[in-house]
């Protein structure tokens, strides 16, 4: 065991060193203004600004002949005046009653999982649209991306597909609404595993640097360590590359690659972009997806400034305060689904549809 731990530790250390070395060289090169990997975020005051964070609470449980889902979403709208939180409002309410969804046994395990994810997103989008209509905010921040996750895309012949289509429709409606009302739409991805930014660095920045007039030793180091960009997530690498108060350049969500499901977004596909910001010293950079049809870097600047301002309160943790609050309000506990099932049982008696799965009811 000890030997294994040593080997694993050595491997992790080796990869981390490669990331650190490469990021160091890129930083030095960046100073020479050969290329722009990162941009300082402008400090702004939050004054006369309404920022809404929307997050959902979701629970699902499978029984012998049915699946129960409970969902709710809350929009936490913070009104800032003179850089301070002046008041807060909740849409639809401070603690909405969870909405139950019962599904039959016709779904496979995978479909049940996809349906659950889509139902959660669906609820969040519906509440986001209502929030925008009621509060007319300056910024809307969603928990997670502002596009459907590829893993949630069902087969076209699946029973879940219609739900997926409806979710896509809601996304498009949201984009339309935000564009019309000039609202900044942002998705804060809590634990991004994306690696697109590193791919962009590898394909564009690294070759141009190798051709540029930089010291030879820099070029050697880049050549020695560039392979790490194929073997890392963006946040792992950017932890070294970005300094506090910096963001990456904006990258297009689709670029030239064919992202699964992006076609469903239709004309909006090219309007989705992403940046990473480093808000605090001891946490990873935070990925922010955003909607921008024009002035992409300007929009990225504005979004980075606002999100940095509401995510930098804790040196160990960076996440927008509006989403921390929305999450706390929307979160569901296991007991809530148990209460719902108990209420169902009361009406149905001992019904085999609601038998617990055998694997969850071992007698010993």
């Amino acid at each position: 065991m000890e030997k294994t731990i040593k080997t694993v530790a050595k491997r992790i250390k080796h990869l981390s060193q490669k990331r650190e070395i490469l990021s160091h060289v890129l930083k030095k090169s960046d100073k020479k203004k050969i290329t722009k990997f990162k941009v300082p975020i402008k400090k702004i005051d939050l004054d006369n600004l309404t920022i809404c964070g929307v997050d959902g609470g979701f629970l699902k449980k499978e029984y012998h002949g049915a699946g129960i889902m409970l969902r709710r979403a809350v929009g936490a709208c913070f009104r800032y005046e003179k850089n301070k939180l002046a008041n807060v409002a909740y849409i639809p309410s401070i603690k909405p009653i969870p909405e139950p969804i019962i599904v039959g046994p016709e779904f496979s395990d995978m479909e049940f999982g996809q349906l659950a994810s889509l139902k959660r997103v669906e609820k969040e989008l519906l509440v986001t649209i209502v929030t925008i209509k009621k509060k007319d905010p300056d910024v809307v921040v969603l928990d997670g991306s502002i596009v459907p996750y590829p893993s949630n895309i069902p087969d076209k012949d699946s029973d879940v597909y219609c739900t997926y289509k409806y979710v896509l429709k809601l996304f498009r409606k949201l984009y339309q609404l935000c564009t019309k009302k000039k609202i900044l739409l942002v998705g804060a991805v809590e634990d991004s595993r994306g690696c697109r930014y590193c791919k962009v660095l590898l394909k564009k920045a690294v070759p141009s640097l190798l051709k540029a007039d930089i010291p030879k030793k820099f070029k050697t180091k880049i050549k020695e360590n560039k392979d790490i960009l194929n073997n890392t997530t963006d946040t792992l690498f950017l932890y070294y590359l970005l300094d506090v108060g910096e963001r990456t350049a904006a990258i297009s969500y689709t670029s030239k690659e064919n992202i699964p499901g992006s076609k469903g977004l239709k004309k909006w596909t090219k309007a989705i972009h992403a940046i990473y910001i480093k808000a605090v010293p001891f946490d990873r950079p935070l990925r922010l997806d955003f909607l921008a049809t024009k002035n992409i870097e300007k929009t990225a600047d504005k979004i980075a400034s606002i999100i940095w301002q509401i995510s930098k309160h804790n040196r160990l943790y960076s996440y927008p305060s509006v989403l921390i609050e929305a999450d706390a309000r929307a979160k569901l506990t296991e007991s809530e689904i148990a209460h719902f099932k108990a209420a169902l049982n009361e009406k149905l008696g001992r019904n085999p549809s609601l038998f617990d799965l055998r694997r969850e009811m071992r007698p010993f």
Partner: protein
Amino acid sequence: MAKFGTIITTPDGPSVSSFSFVIQSGNVKKGQFVSVKTEEGVLIGTIKNIYKTNRYFESAGAVREYDKAGELYSAFPVKEWEYTIAETKALGVYGKDGLLNRPSFPPSPGMVVTDIDPKLLNKFLGLDQERGLDLGTVQQQKLRAKFNLTKMLQKHMAILAISGAGKSYATSVLIEELLSRSPKQGRVALLVIDNHGEYIGFEKDPKLKNKVQVIDGDDIKIAANRLSEKGIAAMLPRMSAVQVRDLGKIISYLREEKEAYSISDIINALKEDENISKATKEALVGWLSELQSMRLFSTSEWPNIENMMRQGHMVVINLKKILNLKKKQIIVNHLSRKLFNLRKQGIVPPYLEIIEEAHNFCPEGKRAEAALSRGIIELLAREGRKFYANLCLISQRPIQLSTTALSQCNTQMVLKVTNPYDLDHIAKSSESITRSTLDMISTLKVGEALMVGEATNYPVFIKVRKRRTKESHGKKLEDFAILYEKKLGSKLAKGEDFL
């Protein structure tokens, strides 16, 4: 009834013995009585503890981090997350039959907790709003703390607190109530053993002066000729059986010879008697001389206890000027014993004997010669109830007070007590005092008291009412020191004049 909050689920409840509720409105305080309408009837509870919770302050590390930036309040809606929870002990349920039962089924989460109907609380506590002694208000409630005379006093009472917590004040309120009662309400006679002259002010009160008689301790005389050898032996516990027998012979001789005689007559007769051994003679003469030096014994007795005890009236024995504790104990022993005997014979009315600084007169663990009045006080505590001879013991050191006497005081009025040994002693002497109640005793403010025992069905905190009679406050330490120095200065000036 005003709604206070809603019952919530906790890891332990709601259960038949306790429940918690989130406070939504109202001025809810620790110790307050509340009610909940349940399937069983009206559940009555008392708030044991109140605490606040806020998810933004649950993680010490996070709070420290956000505090560093000084932005927790400006970044998050912190106040929106503050909830106040009241932990409540279930005390009983009034069913549809109107009877109080133990809760046998818990209230449900979501049930509404309300203020309690004062009439119901009065019934629950067993107070007597019609004829009770009005000592103040039940804390946190709109209910007079009126205790039934019989329940409060017949099985004796103790008033316990540290110095300055309001014992004498509370006792004065009790006295006011007892002296203000009409014959229809039932009145007792009062005897107050006033160690520091705290109750002599009643004599000057315009409303009560006709009901109060103050007797200076120095004026009290015990007729030596009415003392038997056993009576004298009670004051001199070191006497042996032989010495008591020899003293008895002398007393018999003097009774035949004289109608009235004094201690000095006994001493002289002892000295002249040739049949008593020299050793006995010397011991008896020594002890009797000690008694004689107290200037307490005479040929006739004063005051006449038979005549002075009247219903609705109070006699204050002012022992302020007497420094000798033994003399004080002899006076208390004499008066208490005589009064009890007269009560047993039906000669004096039912009475309440209030003994201030009771630990001085009925101490725990002291030898007999240092506790001359302990025997009669313990006897009164044990047997007085049957003869309507009631005791009220007041002490600032309960641990030094006889356990026998204190345990017989079935009603206890406990004001602030901080000494852990005293608190422990109080807890041991009353089974209805719980740990949490005990904790509250040490934090009581002046004038707040816990009533526990026979007078109330459940321990209840009260706020002692204001006195209707004039208070006789002592001077502040600074003022007294200034006055004393002025007096001292004038004395010295007079001395210099002589020089």
